[in-house]
């Protein structure tokens, strides 16, 4: 059975290779091939899942050793896989949601002439992500990690003819590099400390290692997680990444890639458990990002960017939960899975709306769409209820547990974290209600399509006639079916997982689990969550449901304006990093020119000058040469005699 593991990775990799190397011949069938191979991977995953269920909790971990990559004495790098409950969860999420998004893309990218290439990139992404979660050592994980970064770069910049997309792709790549650096340093530290990269020995050896080293490794892993999962301070790329096609936003920036950081921290749980300082840093990053993303989400009028803010915020929840240790890991992963369903659903819904509205993304130009796009409305609505944590739906079960675990952290920390998570839940309810109302309710605020010469924002292939009013319509079957399936997940997944603590028990052998004991009763936590939720919904309704929504955004308060600019993240980066970097490089260039080049050129010039002077001794006259020889002999004799001292 374990021999199937490699196939999980191989199937989409084969798809990527065939689609990207196959050329135009495959243009007509390429998307089917890509979807088929993604589905094949899902089927293999499902087979492995049921096989795993058939075994006892302690015997579920599978290993497959493919080959030795670098078989050197003292440095063993293997291509080997580990499939346990944690990776199984990810495999199902990645291949399941991934396949749905492949199906959705068939319709969404129908008019794009580079659709084959798009599916090739999607398959590449899937394969890299599966490698990431299936690797049995950190080095191979790093391989997948970089592969994910590459695929993400290619997909965000898929419409590279748009400068904004090309820039966004570059930005995502560069910001991710910072995180990647953290991961590579962490791996190097691991190698020097433990002498191996393999999860098993590394995580088992944390007991015998100094806390300082573990803290260093943990902080570097956190840096890596911040990069991939768009956590403060490496969050700035996620909003811009919405320049990619919407299925990419759904696949990468909701369901899979951004969860890699959560996976990394959960997988390295043993390291963090033994390094409380690193763990605290994780919690702080999670809490800050949670609020950061939520606030940004409140101010965005672009539907995808509002959802991106929400993603950032929800992943903040997960990181926070992962930072809580054994009381939080399981809930972090559970929220990750439920979030995978409803956020993918929400993004696909947003894509569907844009598809019907001439690719308009400004929610202020939506309104009243519920009648025109009923399926989208219902599925999006269910996703909405799930994300705000409406009791009974998926998000409720997972988020509530995280809030409980945050309180259970204990002491002042526990109260602060609990309050932050509660506040976050309220803000989530607020901004998601705002999105819902502005898009599907209220009066129509539709605008004629912009002149493509002035604002060439339209996705290629979609025929948009300037000045034409949009004709909202329901999207084709290939798009709605994935949305419906995801909606099921949004509604029921959380409940199923919570039945008899099924999910927690499932993950327990890998991540360990402790029951948290919040200072107030669980019931009180749930009650206050619901209250906060209602307050958030109420405020949003009061602001956007009761009053007409202006088509042109009002100036807004200082905070609103700052939030629209992503809480000045880019300004901060520009002033501190770009300007600082420019200053540094300029001074280094100056140093290089004056000091280094000065020394080098000065030496060369003085040697050259010496050469020019010495060669004048070579004047061509035999008499001068003879004098030189005579003098030389005299010196030779004198020196010989002097040496003897006679």
């Amino acid at each position, binding site marked *: 059975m374990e021999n199937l593991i490699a196939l999980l990775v191989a199937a989409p990799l084969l798809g990527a290779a065939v689609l990207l190397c196959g050329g135009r011949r495959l243009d007509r069938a390429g998307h089917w091939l890509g979807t088929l191979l993604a589905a094949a991977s899902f089927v293999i995953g499902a087979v492995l899942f049921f096989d795993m269920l058939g075994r006892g909790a302690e015997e579920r971990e599978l290993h497959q050793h493919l080959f030795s990559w670098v078989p050197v004495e003292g440095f063993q790098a293997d291509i080997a896989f580990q499939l346990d409950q944690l990776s199984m969860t990810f495999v199902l999420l990645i291949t399941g949601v991934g396949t749905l998004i492949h199906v959705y893309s068939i319709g969404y990218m129908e008019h794009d002439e580079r659709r084959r290439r798009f599916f090739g990139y999607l398959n590449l992404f899937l394969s890299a992500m599966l490698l990431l979660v299936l690797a049995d050592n950190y080095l191979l994980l790093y391989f997948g990690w970089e592969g994910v970064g590459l695929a993400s770069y290619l997909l965000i910049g898929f419409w590279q003819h748009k400068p904004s997309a090309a820039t966004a792709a570059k930005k995502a790549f560069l910001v991710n590099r910072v995180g990647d650096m953290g991961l590579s340093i962490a791996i190097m530290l691991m190698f020097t400390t433990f002498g191996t990269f393999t999860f098993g020995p590394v995580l088992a050896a944390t007991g015998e290692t100094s806390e300082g080293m573990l803290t260093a490794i943990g902080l570097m892993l956190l840096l890596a997680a911040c990069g991939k999962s768009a956590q403060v301070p490496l969050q700035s790329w996620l909003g811009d990444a919405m320049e990619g096609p919407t299925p990419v936003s759904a696949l990468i920036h909701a369901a899979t890639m951004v969860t890699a950081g959560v996976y990394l921290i959960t997988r390295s749980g043993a390291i963090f458990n033994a390094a409380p300082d690193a763990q605290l840093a994780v919690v702080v990053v999670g809490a800050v990002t949670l609020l950061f993303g939520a606030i940004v989400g409140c101010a965005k009028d672009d539907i995808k960017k509002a959802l991106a803010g929400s993603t950032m915020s929800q992943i903040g929840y997960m990181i926070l939960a992962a930072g809580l240790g054994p009381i939080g890991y399981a809930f972090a992963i559970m929220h990750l899975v439920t979030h995978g369903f409803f956020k993918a659903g929400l993004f696909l819904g947003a894509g569907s709306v844009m598809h019907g509205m001439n690719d308009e993304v400004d929610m202020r130009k939506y309104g009243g769409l519920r009648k025109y796009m009923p399926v989208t409305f219902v599925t999006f609505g269910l996703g909405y209820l799930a994300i705000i944590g409406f009791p009974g739906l998926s998000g409720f079960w997972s988020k509530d547990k995280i809030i409980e675990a945050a309180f259970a952290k204990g002491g002042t920390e526990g109260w602060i974290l609990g309050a932050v998570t509660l506040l976050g839940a309220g803000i989530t309810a607020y901004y998601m209600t705002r999105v819902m109302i502005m898009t599907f309710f209220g009066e129509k605020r539709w605008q004629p399509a912009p002149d493509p010469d002035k604002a060439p924002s339209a996705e290629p292939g979609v025929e948009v006639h300037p000045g034409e009013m949009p004709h909202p319509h329901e999207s084709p079957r290939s798009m709605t079916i994935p949305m419906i399936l995801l909606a099921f997940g949004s509604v029921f997944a959380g409940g199923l997982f919570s039945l008899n603590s099924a999910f927690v028990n499932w993950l327990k052998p890998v991540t360990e689990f402790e029951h948290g004991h919040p200072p107030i009763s669980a019931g009180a936590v749930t009650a206050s969550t619901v209250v906060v939720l209602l307050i958030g919904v109420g405020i949003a309704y009061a602001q956007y449901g009761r009053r007409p929504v202006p088509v042109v955004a009002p100036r807004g308060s200082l905070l609103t304006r700052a939030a629209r600019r992503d809480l000045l993240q880019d300004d901060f980066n520009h002033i501190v990093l770009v300007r600082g970097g420019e200053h540094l490089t300029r001074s280094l260039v100056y140093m290089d020119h004056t000091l280094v080049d000065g020394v080098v050129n000065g030496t*060369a010039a003085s*040697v*050259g000058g*010496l*050469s*020019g002077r*010495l*060669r004048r*001794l*070579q004047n*061509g006259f*035999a008499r*001068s*040469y*003879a004098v*030189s*020889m005579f*003098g*030389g*002999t005299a*010196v*030779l*004799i004198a*020196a*010989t*005699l002097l*040496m*003897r001292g*006679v």
Partner: protein
Amino acid sequence: MSASAAVAVHSLWTTAAEPAAADRIGAPAIEYAQLAPTLIVVGAAVVGVLLEAFVPRRARYHAQVFLTVVALAAAFAAVVALAAGGHATTKAGIVAMGAIAVDGPALFLQGTILLTSLVAVFTFAERRLDPAHHGHRVDSFAAEAAAVPGSEQEKAAVKAGFTTTEVFPLVLFAVGGMLVFPAANDLLTLFIALEVFSLPLYLLCAVARRKRLMSQEAAVKYFLLGAFSSAFLLFGVALMYGYAGSVSYARIADVVDGSVSDITPALAQTMGNDVLLLIGFAMVLMGLLFKVGAVPFHMWTPDVYQGAPTPVTGFMAAATKVAAFGAMLRLLYVVLPGLRWDWRPVMWGVAIVTMLAGAIVAITQTDIKRLLAYSSIAHAGFILAGVIAATPDGVSSVLFYLGAYSFVTVGAFAVVTLVRDAGGEATHLSKWAGLGRRSPLVAAVFAVFLLAFAGIPLTSGFSGKFAVFKAAAEGGAGALVVIGVISSAIAAFFYIRVIVLMFFSEPKPEGPTVAVPSPLTMTTIAVGVAVTLALGVAPQYFLDLAGQASVFVR
């Protein structure tokens, strides 16, 4: 230092020969077999002179080339046979009444000289580079060397298709002298050998077909300065005789050690006077330093290298250096080991000045032959560093370096003969610009030689330099190695500059053409490249060979 300790140290690189025969006058015993290499070459040279006299002019070229190649090859075979017969190690001895030593270093150096000369002679025999004159194929040598340049007589000689086939016997005589030079076991033989190989070289320098005046100027300078240095050397020999009462190396060494008590009555006044020894040593050393081109006795080198016909330059640059360093090694290691506390500091100074001056002055050269001349000066400095080591490793590393360097040199000068324009060889560096674009193969081959000169790994230059510097460092000359490495860095600049010029500059529209040589020059270049790479990639066998051959007989 006590005498016994000195003996113990010397035994590191010397073995005792059979004691000399008793002091009675008898017929000289000549060990023909052990002298075979020299005898073959000198004999062939004499036959070559006879060929000039008796063979018709049109057949002379072929006869001479054949004779020379066969003689050199046979002599090399004789060297190999002697070495295989144990004469390099267990049966090493002094022959010809104490005049000649047959031992490891002598045979190794003789083999190197013979092989180098063999490939160099191929470039002498090359007749396809210059366009034919009046239907006669010509080589690099004047039609009639005795004719005044530009005279009617010269024109007539050119028209008649004369060639100076005398160069072949001259080469053989020079090689004969070179074979004796490193094997000479007394100071007089040393001097005779010096003259025997120097005089033909002076003549060879004068017989260039193109740029004859420059060639003759070079020859005159070389002759004048060579005579000057020979005078010093001879005076040094006289002083050392005055000190030791003998010109025999072994005898002088014994006197230096203090292990000789019998004093020649006629020399009672002077014998054992260290001042005589030191001055005499310095003068003999000066004669040898002149031949290797060490600063400040180097000044003939650029002028002569530039003026001499390029095949002669290649031969001279390679073989002379081997012979002269061989003689120097024997002088310092056999005759004067007891004096090394005196000669090492002096040699330090010479080596440092030579390395630095050679490398630095080369930077501003614009003529490829002068550039290579200064490069050879710098290399003389590097080799001196190995000589100074005064350890068995010092001997073997110098032997290896000489072997490696001589093939690179012959090959490099052979390439220089190929790059030509209307005026003959285009030696000005500006004309080499962009050569790599037009003639990638020739430029690549030359680049290999330059990299070897620069001592880049995977070439013989690196192996040799590494061996020499390692020996010097282990011999306690660490500072010298540092200066050597700095000089190498400076030298790398001008070698690499030529490579950059060849490959990264735009070719000049009026640039030179690369002549297609006959198989003769091709062989020379191919052997040069092959040896350069072989000694760079797998030097160990040859290092071992040099190591086995590093014990002098005394």
